[in-house]
């Protein structure tokens, strides 16, 4: 019977072309939505690599056209750290977690090239403030004051791309294009390796990262200082005000803003989710359209094939048998569409597109195929029942 259905579908390929292409199209849409959803969900379930709870982001601005000397800034930080309820204070660059600010570069080590890597400035207390997970070596500290190179800590994924499974701690790497005679601060001495971090949003994948040590006796003058403040659980608005007053107590010209990193996270989450939800809704809408179209086409097909149905009944088919035949035909048509779609979809993992691992693609192919079969089966169900109920004597006398 299955062969008979294939013969029938094959001989009707012109008529079935529209159905097959609709199914192919639906499959591709579901596949794309599937890959996005699976990747997003997998990212969401991956640890962030740091603890965003009870961390605040303190931004101190020198004011229009003004700069702040490092010594004065250190003085402010000392006062903030001394406040009851404040655990740690760490000076860093503007690209703090969950804000729309990035700073990235590419690096190399003995001919091995890194992917695009986020570059952070961090002082000696950053590890404690962020609660990163140290895997190898240690965070930089005063022992590196005399270092000839820039002490850095790198994330595990950066470590893998630069050093593979060989030793990393103690090695020195450079920018991808270091120039002829790179300055010592452009030569990066690996002090430690931390777990991968996901700092852009809850739904983004981990990105390779490097933390450059901010040298304490740095003489640069700052316009804006970004400070991560880890506080005791339960601290809130009162402490935030106290911090602002403390900064103002040192110098009146500077302005401060205190934000809760977790709020930034929730805010960023919305932004990241909008396109995903949008894509899913558009996908859903298309699928509903296709399903309705399918339903109509099947209904029409059956009305066109009443005589054939009567004939098959006369030849010994039962009503239920007719129903299964129409459902089966739809499944065969679906198989054509899904096969074509899978052929296309399989190119993504085969060509290693978008640097994603193969499994979200494979999962999405399976999921999209399952969903398409389910949708077509649901659409075909009612028309098939209709076909099963056609009275053979009536159908055969028409024409």
């Amino acid at each position, binding site marked *: *019977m299955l*062969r*008979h259905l294939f*013969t*029938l579908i094959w*001989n*009707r390929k012109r008529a079935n072309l529209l159905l097959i292409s609709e199914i192919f199209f639906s499959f591709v849409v579901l596949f794309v939505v599937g890959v996005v959803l699976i990747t997003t969900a997998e990212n969401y379930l991956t640890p962030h690599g740091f603890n965003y709870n009870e961390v605040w982001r303190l931004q101190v601005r020198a004011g229009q056209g003004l700069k702040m000397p490092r010594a004065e800034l250190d003085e402010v930080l000392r006062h903030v750290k001394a406040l009851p309820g404040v655990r740690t204070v760490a000076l860093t660059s503007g690209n703090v977690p969950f804000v729309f600010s990035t700073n990235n570069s590419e690096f190399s080590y003995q001919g091995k090239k890194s992917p695009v890597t986020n570059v952070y400035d961090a002082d000696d207390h950053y590890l404690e403030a962020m609660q990163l997970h140290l895997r190898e070596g240690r965070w930089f500290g005063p022992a590196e004051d005399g270092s000839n190179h820039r002490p850095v800590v790198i994330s595990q994924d950066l470590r893998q791309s630069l050093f593979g499974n060989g030793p990393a701690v103690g090695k020195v790497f450079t920018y991808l294009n270091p120039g002829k005679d790179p300055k010592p601060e452009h030569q990066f001495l690996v002090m430690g390796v931390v777990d991968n971090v996901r700092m852009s949003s809850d739904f983004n994948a981990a990105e390779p990262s490097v933390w450059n040590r901010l040298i304490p006796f740095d003489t640069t003058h700052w316009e804006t200082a970004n400070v991560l403040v880890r506080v005791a659980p339960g601290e809130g608005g009162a402490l935030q005000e106290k911090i602002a007053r403390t900064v103002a107590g040192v110098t009146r010209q500077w302005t401060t803003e205190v934000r809760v990193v977790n709020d930034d996270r929730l805010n960023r989450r919305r932004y990241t989710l909008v396109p995903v939800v949008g894509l899913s809704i558009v996908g859903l809408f298309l699928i509903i359209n296709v399903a309705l179209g399918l339903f109509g086409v099947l209904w029409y097909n059956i009305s066109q094939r009443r*005589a*054939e149905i*009567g*004939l*098959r*009944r*006369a*030849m*010994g*088919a*039962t*009503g239920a*048998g007719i129903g299964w035949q129409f459902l089966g035909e739809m499944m065969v048509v679906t198989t054509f569409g899904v096969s074509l779609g899978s052929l296309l979809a399989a190119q993504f993992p085969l060509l290693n597109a978008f640097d994603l691992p193969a499994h979200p693609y494979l999962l999405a192919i399976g999921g999209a195929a399952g969903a398409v079969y389910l949708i077509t089966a649901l659409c075909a169900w009612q028309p098939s029942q209709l076909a099963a109920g056609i*009275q*053979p*004597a009536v159908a*055969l*006398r028409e*024409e």
Partner: protein
Amino acid sequence: MENLLANPTSYSQAAPLAGAAGTPVLRLTNIEKVYQTSTIETVALNQVNLVINRGEFVSIMGPSGCGKSTLLSLMGLLDEPTRGTIEVDGRPVQSYSDRELAGLRNLKIGFVFQSYHLINDLSVVDNVELPLLYRPGMSGKDRRQRALAVLDKVGLGARTGHFPSQLSGGQRQRVAIARALAGAPEIILADEPTGNLDSVMGEEIMDLLLGLNRQDGVTIVMVTHDEQQALKTERVIRFFDGSQVG
């Protein structure tokens, strides 16, 4: 045409061995068929009593609308009478389930229609295989073999790969007859099989049916408007307005 029928083929008509010639194969008792629509009630058959014996060639005649097709679809177990009983081989069909009725149609009955009812998207041989498709446990190879054998028998051995649209009306009806024969039925029910054909092609089809009846012992019930054809059959049953008149 005749010599084609006389040719020995690998195909054998096995079914008529199931019962002795002359015994009743179909018995209709006090049959009434009423079509009920929202506005009117049509009595298509009224008090019909009929016995078809094994090996007979019966023709049914009567004016348009007198209930001939209705009678054939009752005999073919495609529809149920409003009143009365139909017996196949002495067993009333009311006692059969839908599945059993489908099985009976498949095994015992072959249908031939005025408008052929071929499936246009299937090749000639695929069309002929159709009844065998509903016969459980038959291999694809066996089906093909039998289909080719009956196509040979009706003189279409060279057209097996054609599609119905590539055939003449007479050839199409021969495909339909081959299809009816493929399942080796005891009875062939033919509803105006020559109705769409010119007299020459009609003659060919008639000869084919006569050959099947005489050489292979197939029981045939044929509806016709052609007096000449009816005279060639063993028995003519005449209908008028839903009732038997002779």
